[in-house]
């Protein structure tokens, strides 16, 4: 498992091979290098209701096709994050529309709750579910900055580039995102590590 500090060191990212055609031989290597990163990003951006499998497939489908157009001006992770953010955002909009169309927008019926597949249930510990729940409550802009800076350990300059805002704006968003994170935690009665003892994922 790579540590956070290791992930912060982005200078060692290898120079990408230029792909000559969609889904060419370079794709396999590209896919293996970045799958875990994209998975983390999608799991956090999509929230508990997102279909991570579908989203991952969609993101890599786009990336695979557009790989020959990738000129290497940005980092691969930056490029991939943009694709992931767009796909997840489109998926959210689609789900919102479906939700509205299905006329279930007022409130869930009594006893009704979002049921996850057994795979997802197992793979996501309580700690992850807690963090993802908090992220789902944040606005998209704050969530993006928080994920990239706090959880992915991306340098501030890179985060600003990915989300497309000035560096100072990025710091401001981060400040508010952190404050919101603490506030929501407090609302859920978690104020210190001791409160997390019942969360198996927190000690992994």
């Amino acid at each position, binding site marked *: 498992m790579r540590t956070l500090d290791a992930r912060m060191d982005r200078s060692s990212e290898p120079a990408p091979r230029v792909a000559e055609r969609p*889904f060419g031989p370079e794709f396999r290597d590209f896919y293996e290098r970045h799958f875990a990163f994209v998975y*983390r990003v999608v799991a956090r951006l999509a929230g508990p209701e997102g279909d991570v499998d579908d989203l991952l497939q969609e993101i890599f489908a786009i990336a695979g096709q557009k790989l020959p157009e990738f000129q290497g001006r940005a980092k691969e992770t930056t490029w991939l994050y943009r694709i992931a953010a767009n796909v997840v955002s489109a998926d959210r909009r689609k789900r919102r529309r479906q939700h509205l169309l299905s006329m279930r927008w007022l409130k869930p019926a009594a006893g009704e709750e979002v049921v996850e597949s057994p795979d997802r249930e197992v793979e996501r510990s309580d*700690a992850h579910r807690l963090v993802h729940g908090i992220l789902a409550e944040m606005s998209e802009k704050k969530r993006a900055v928080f994920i990239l800076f706090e959880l992915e350990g991306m340098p501030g300059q890179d985060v600003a580039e990915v989300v497309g805002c000035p560096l100072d704006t990025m710091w401001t968003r981060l400040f508010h995102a952190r404050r919101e994170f603490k506030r929501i935690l407090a609302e859920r009665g978690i104020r210190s590590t001791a409160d997390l003892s019942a969360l198996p994922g927190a*000690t992994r």
Partner: protein
Amino acid sequence: MNDPSFQPRRWRESLDLAPLVEAESALSPPEGLQERIYHALALRFSPMAEAASDPELRSLLLRAALEPPAGLKERVLREVTEEALARLGLAEPARLAAASDPAALLLSRAATLDPPAGRRARGLLRLTPGPRRRRPAFVLAPLALAAALTGLVLFLWPRAHPPTGTSLAVGTFGPVAVLRAGALLAPHATLEVGDALTALSNDPQRLRLAGVGDFFFGGQGGRLALEKNDAGGVLLALSGGRIAVHAVHRPPTAPLVVEAGDTRVRIVGTIFSVDATGPNVRVAVREGLVRVTRGTQVTFVGSGQVWSASAGVSRSRPPSWANTLMQTLAGRAVPRPAPSAPGTARVAASVPPATSLAKAPPAPTSRPRPRSRPSPVTTAPLPPLASAAGRPAAAQPAVDLVALARGLMGKSKVELRRIGRDAARQGDLTTEAGALYALSFAADATGADRAATLAQLAHLLDEQLADPAEALRIWRYLADKSPADRPEAVASEFEVDVELGRQAELARAFAECVRACSPDDLAVARWTRALALADSPRYAALLKAAKRIAPTAQHAAVLTYEQRARLLAVTQPERARRLARFAAKLAPDDLDADVRALLNE
């Protein structure tokens, strides 16, 4: 900004929740997800990416997505899939095993390709995201569950049922576990009737059944029971899994029968394989002849043929695994999984002589007949194929077959029919076109079915080989020479003219239609013409006339347009869109989803 409090670590420490955020930072994908998604991508995109860059492959895939002759779909999808998997590094046995043989999955899908799958294929060909993908997890889950349950049963069974026979040793035949009288059989034993086999992995294992012959058995979770059949012979009851059999000659009174679900394969003495891993049982025969019974339907499958429950008999290549194993059984190759694994039996020395396919009764072909009606004999010679040289390269082999056909003039009617059927069974449209040409030329000697053959050929050329000019030529010939076929020929000619936008030809065909066609054909022709002239003042008058002639023809016209639009959607998109617009004008509120999608492109 250099405020140290903005450093992630500092902030977490200040929060006193570092473990929580650290745990989240270390989030990793669940096991198997990376491989699963990659595999799904390979199946979804790679063949299509390949097809997009290779016109020949693209053309094959297009045909597979439409309405192909039996076997073509499977062949094309298999070739494309194998190529794609190999290119993406998924072809190694271990990966394939992990993915539970995706080629087999795709084959079973291909065999039941339905209109939505055709749509998906078209969508993928344009490299646009198609509708919802198949989820390999859902496919693999039952297999994994079956394998796990089998393992559990094999583990617990000997404890619950103490062995009573003489075979007390616990072991397996390599990747196959054999139960006899409730106990696991020792390796190296010769199998007997009454034994039950379970495949513990996908790797095939070579085994020997006394008095029957050698066979390979594999396909994780598959079960094979060796029983006596009603006729006093041996019954191999296959449930999941695959076998490839080299049976020694058996007396007709004690036949060897392989049963997989409701399919029974009766063996006379041959080398063949049965695949029951997917929803459709598939039988591939390398040598000899087997009789396949499914329900009340009986089919003979001969050497070099493949039979599947959905597609019937075809001459498509057997799956690579079956080919390798059958070659080994025939003593011509060695399969990758070394046969010297524990429990391997020796190969039977005698190889039975191959039975000639010619002795087999003709197998039914699943290709739908075109709408042409049988017609009386037409004995007038066909005009020379002057335009053959100008045809697209894909149709070139047809020309060669025409030359061949000229040499077949003296052959009997039965022989000529067999040649045509064999060519159609090859699963290649071009070959089929060639065979039809051959038949129609050689029909100078026989006469029968000539007009019907020509009509079939014209449909094939127009709808699937994208050669409307040649089709038109044949329609005109038929309209002139075969009075019985004139209405259909003229109507079809008219339709092609309209679609090709030939106004002068259109006028001539319309006049002919008025003279020769049935009221319905004429009405459809008027609809077509009205829509072709939709911008002109004659539009309303023509529609009115069409309604007067045959009020019910509107529905027929819509269906015709929709059907043809779907057929031409990929090979001739412009024509297809024009037809879709016609259908939309006639039935804007009741349009087929395919056609609506075509209009929205």
